[in-house]
């Protein structure tokens, strides 16, 4: 679907952030859903997904609020985002898929309800109205996908926002 605007691909996302123009989002992306929040990250920003079979045993990591680990497995740490894109302070419930995101420590995994790879996307990304935005928000545009709003962003901006006040 080609709509009026500037045609761009994954590599150009940095250029469009913080602009107020509609652009065409193209390429391969990964849909990451946490509760009702749906993010769309370039596929190159998202590592392999793994199922959390012991999620009920996620324990809070002392000294790092919002970071959890699996009992008897301290090689990986887990974070789940709230609707405000900040780490949840309570162990994530039913976030049964964990992924690695680019630009974070190797041992850190991000928990989601749903992870879906979307190939060859071509969607119009519309700017969010000014009244919605907060400073340094990783989300500046939205796309409509299967009747729902999905928010494109990059791992770099997402993590800079989410981990701003978190000691990991």
């Amino acid at each position, binding site marked *: 679907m080609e709509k009026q605007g500037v045609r761009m691909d994954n590599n150009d996302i940095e250029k469009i952030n913080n602009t107020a123009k509609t652009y065409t989002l193209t390429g391969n992306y990964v849909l990451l859903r946490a509760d009702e929040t749906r993010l769309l990250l370039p596929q190159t920003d998202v590592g392999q997904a793994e199922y959390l079979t012991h999620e009920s045993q996620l324990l809070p990591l002392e000294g790092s609020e919002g970071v959890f680990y699996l009992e008897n497995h301290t090689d990986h740490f887990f974070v789940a985002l709230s609707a405000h894109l900040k780490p949840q302070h309570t162990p994530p419930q039913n976030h049964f898929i964990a992924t690695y995101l680019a630009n974070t420590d190797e041992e850190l995994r991000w928990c989601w309800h749903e992870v879906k790879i979307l190939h060859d996307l071509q969607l119009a990304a519309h700017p*969010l*109205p*000014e009244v919605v935005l907060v400073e340094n928000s990783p989300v500046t545009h*939205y796309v409509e996908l299967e009747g729902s709003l999905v928010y494109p962003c990059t791992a770099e901006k997402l993590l800079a*926002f989410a981990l701003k006040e978190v000691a990991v």
Partner: protein
Amino acid sequence: MTTNKTTIQSSASFNTQSPLPSSVNGEFAFMGEDLFEQHPSSSLTQKNTKGAVARLLEYEWRRYVAVAPHTALEVIENPSFSPIPAAAYYIAGMLHWQQRWLPVVNLRALVNGKADDDALLPLKYVLVLAYQAQAGEPINYGAVTLHGLPKSLLVVDEQACELPESIPVWQQVAVSCFTYEREAVPIIDTGLLFAQSHVNALPKVG
């Protein structure tokens, strides 16, 4: 969830010669019957009365703002919103309306300067408003949450008053103010409300 819509007016009765502002410069002059609830104390039927009609919006029990009638387009009952991640604290979500997605401003949260937990509960009404970011730009749309149905009110110059300084956001979005039931009622310019962020306009404490 289904959405019930109450199609409303905007009458062309706004007096552009009035000192009260018009944020969309009269481009919205919908004809038709005014279906807004009319407040019993208003004098809309009186002739030879100088003033202007305003839409009175109750955003919290007995707390009001007003807008120009031609900006108020449609009341939606029992709306459903799509959440926006990392949005400003006063944003209730995005509303799907006439093949568009509109930002919904929770006026109570905006005035109180903090996220409104009650916003998580079902909201009874939202009002779709028209705005222009600047003169000459295309008409755009947004919505605000309401505690009750809007009312029509005739406002006369004698009711003019100062904007309350305790709520800084009024300095950003209001262009005038009048008294109603002994309370100051800011008149909101919808362009100023929707075309800028208000995250730094927090109320004064104490």
